[in-house]
């Protein structure tokens, strides 16, 4: 132990980040945690300081309202303050990493966490290029979404509770990305799952919201089981659980069946957390939460944790090419599958939810084919434009809700059939969302174009010839799978352009369908909501410059590629080999990608131009369209095949086994025992002094006998 500490100290002393601002990394998760504690306490406060019963009703009500406003101001300052501080610290650490050579991660251990014999787990954080990139995304976008939430949640009585959960989420997410070992990552992993559950069911008086939260939790359990098994396997094979130790052991040990098993179980965890087939079902339901939550947790950060985990475990996946092929295949199929569903959704948030599932599939396509930089690049750009789209949708829902509230009409504020023509009422939101639509569709020069194009060309390049293409999965050659994945990606790109343009046209184009009385109440969101949206719009436009391809030299080439090289470079090279795609092919690929996007947009513009029928007159979707509207009836299928049989089994076991068997034995047995003890025990307490005397004498004899025997 002492040796280890000494070695660590010696290693840390040599690390270029030692003694810099990076030593303050422990504050990163702690700041939002502090915010969560303070806001959590503030959320309990109103109940303690309710105005007294004296004075007239009006005065009491206005006093209560004033107290509520004061509390909201305080909560807003605390919540965004801690986020801004964390972001500032992250930027400072990021700045300190510039211009120094960082081949090894900067690991700081703060405490022994689980010292149990062979198992030594420390609570440590790790600063490297990948974890800092994720930290910047989480704190940066997190701050913007916190600001947006101040406006969005303004009239909600659970304001303080909401920000307590949101701060707690960021604390857990930062633990996830900064942890230096799998168990620490897992703590963050479970923590974000908990916060996701709490925020999906935030409006818990509606049963559907509670059910959605529960569903997310239960489905994620299946994935977490995989993650746990992967950790057990790592420990039993390598006796290590920290990233450096495990990855070094894998690299020196080579491709063994155990490494393949570890990779597959890790991927099961990713499938749950990042909503891939077949465990994607929770994400569309998760839209029951407040919309900024959907933006932060279910689009920009938490659901990308699986992509992060694969990128973080790149050495493991690089030594398990079959598992990598499975990752890319599952990603591709998910991307295509979810994109088709998004084509016919009427709820604006459902469109975005399926779009998120689809884009996450894209990221897995990339990291599975060993294009870790491309996957992380798409993660970052997707965080920009999808957060924007969700926040924009939040502004739209906010306006729609206000309009219906104004006339006391009870209608669906999220249904695209009730929207239309909103560009006239909320021009800034419409413009920002249009930019994001172009980005997600893959139109140059917006962020999504570069990341998506990089993924597609990376998959194509690896299909042409690479160690990955020479590997096989289920007896199928890797090259075939990779070409199929590329085709899926291309079709998905087309569908993405179509469904996003459709959504924009239905919401913002044509005439307004909200209702004649309601139109007057439609309005642009307040500045506190539009400002974060516009900030994200800027990022959506310039995000592509993070990693420009050599083909389009309009700035520094491959900044992100270069930045992530020490973390994932070796693993990527192991899977990709040295095949070079001819220049002409690359140009052709870019041309195809752009043509696909333009084609999709053009098709949707033509298809959804002009005025659309309002909800009452909208045709009912039948046939294939109906199938897509019902999302292939997967939920009903799962319900029929899994949920109901299990419920029935549990019910019958309870009725036939538990109740007559266990319950009666237990409660009957308890009664019998108590009765026996009572009958027996009361004989000693019947008030007969003579009996007491005998007992005392007998007791004294026993004591004397015991003493003389010992």
């Amino acid at each position, binding site marked *: 132990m002492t040796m280890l500490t000494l070695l660590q100290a010696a290693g840390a002393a040599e690390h270029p980040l030692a003694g810099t601002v990076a030593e303050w990394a422990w504050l990163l998760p702690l700041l939002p945690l502090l915010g969560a504690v303070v806001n959590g306490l503030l959320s309990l406060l109103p109940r303690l300081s309710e105005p007294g019963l004296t004075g007239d009703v009006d005065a009491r009500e206005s006093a209560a309202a004033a107290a509520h406003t004061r509390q909201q101001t305080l909560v807003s300052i605390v919540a965004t303050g801690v986020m801004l501080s964390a972001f500032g610290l992250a930027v400072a650490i990021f700045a300190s990493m510039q211009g120094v050579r960082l081949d090894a991660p900067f690991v700081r251990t703060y405490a022994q966490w689980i010292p149990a014999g062979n198992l030594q787990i420390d609570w440590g954080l790790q600063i490297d290029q990948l974890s800092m990139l994720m930290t910047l995304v989480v704190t940066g976008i997190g701050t913007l979404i916190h600001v947006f939430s101040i406006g969005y949640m303004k009239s909600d009585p659970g304001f303080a509770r909401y920000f307590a959960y949101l701060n707690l989420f960021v604390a857990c997410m930062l633990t996830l990305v900064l942890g230096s070992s799998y168990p620490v990552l897992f703590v963050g992993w479970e923590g974000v799952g908990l916060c996701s559950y709490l925020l999906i069911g935030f409006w818990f008086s509606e049963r559907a919201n509670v059910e959605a939260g529960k569903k997310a939790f239960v489905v994620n359990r299946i994935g977490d089981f995989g993650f746990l098994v992967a950790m057990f396997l790592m420990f039993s094979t390598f006796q290590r659980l920290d990233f450096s130790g495990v990855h070094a052991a894998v690299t020196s040990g080579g491709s063994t069946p155990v490494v393949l098993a570890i990779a597959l179980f890790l991927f099961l965890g990713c499938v749950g957390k990042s909503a891939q087939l077949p465990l994607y079902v929770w994400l569309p339901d998760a839209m029951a939460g407040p919309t900024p939550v959907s933006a932060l947790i279910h689009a920009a950060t938490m659901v990308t944790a699986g992509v992060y985990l694969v990128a973080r475990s790149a050495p493991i996946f690089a030594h398990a090419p079959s598992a990598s092929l499975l990752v890319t295949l599952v990603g591709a199929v998910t991307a295509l599958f979810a994109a088709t569903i998004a084509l016919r959704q009427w709820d604006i948030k459902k469109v975005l939810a399926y779009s998120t599932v689809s884009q996450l599939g894209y990221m897995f396509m990339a990291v599975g084919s060993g294009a870790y930089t491309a996957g992380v690049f798409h993660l970052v750009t997707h965080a920009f434009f999808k957060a924007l789209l969700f926040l924009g949708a939040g502004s739209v829902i906010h306006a729609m809700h206000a309009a219906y509230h104004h006339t006391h009409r009870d209608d669906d504020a999220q249904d695209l059939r009730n929207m239309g023509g909103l560009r006239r009422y909320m021009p800034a939101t419409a413009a920002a969302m249009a930019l994001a639509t172009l980005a997600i569709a893959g139109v140059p020069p917006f962020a999504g174009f570069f990341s998506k194009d990089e993924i597609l060309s990376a998959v194509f390049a690896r299909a042409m010839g690479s160690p990955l293409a020479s590997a096989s999965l289920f007896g199928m050659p890797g090259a075939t799978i990779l070409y199929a994945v590329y085709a899926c990606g291309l079709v998905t790109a087309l569908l993405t352009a179509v469904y996003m343009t459709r959504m924009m046209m239905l919401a913002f184009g044509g005439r307004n369908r909200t209702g004649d009385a309601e139109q007057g109440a439609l309005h642009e969101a307040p500045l506190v909501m539009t400002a974060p949206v516009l900030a994200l719009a800027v990022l959506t436009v310039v995000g592509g410059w993070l990693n420009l391809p050599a083909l389009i030299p309009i700035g520094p080439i491959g900044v992100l590629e270069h930045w992530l090289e020490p973390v994932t470079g070796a693993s990527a090279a192991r899977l990709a080999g040295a095949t070079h795609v001819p220049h002409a092919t690359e140009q052709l690929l870019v041309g195809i990608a752009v043509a696909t996007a333009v084609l999709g947009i053009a098709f949707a513009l033509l298809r959804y131009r002009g005025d659309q029928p309002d909800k009452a007159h909208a045709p009912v979707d039948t046939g294939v369209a109906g199938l897509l509207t019902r999302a292939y009836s997967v939920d009903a299928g799962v319900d029929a095949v899994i949920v109901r049989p299990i419920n029935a089994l549990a019910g019958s076991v309870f009725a036939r086994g538990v109740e007559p068997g266990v319950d009666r034995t237990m409660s009957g047995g308890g009664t019998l025992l108590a009765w026996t003890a009572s009958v027996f025990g009361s004989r000693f307490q*019947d*008030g*007969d*002094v*003579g009996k007491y*005397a005998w007992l005392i*004498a007998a007791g004294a004899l026993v004591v004397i006998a015991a003493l003389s025997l010992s």
Partner: protein
Amino acid sequence: MIAEALIVSALLFAIGVIGVLTRRNAIILFMCVELMLNAVNLSFVALAKLHGVAGHVFVIMVMTIAAAEAAVGLAIVISVFRHFGSVDLSALRLLRDG
């Protein structure tokens, strides 16, 4: 000499114990308890020959406490007699349930 004193002491104590266990009259019980106390006193005095003056000190202590206890105990017996018209302890079973 000490052995004989200890034997007498043990016999006295045993008589006292048997009396407490077998008799029901409160006065007799009381006397038996006094008998046990004095049996212990006898062994204290006898052993003081071997171990010094501490035994004598204990005897004085026990006699003082026994005198106080006798006063309280007899007062209780008298009030029991006044209340129940008897000093037979087997009749005093009010703590019993039912």
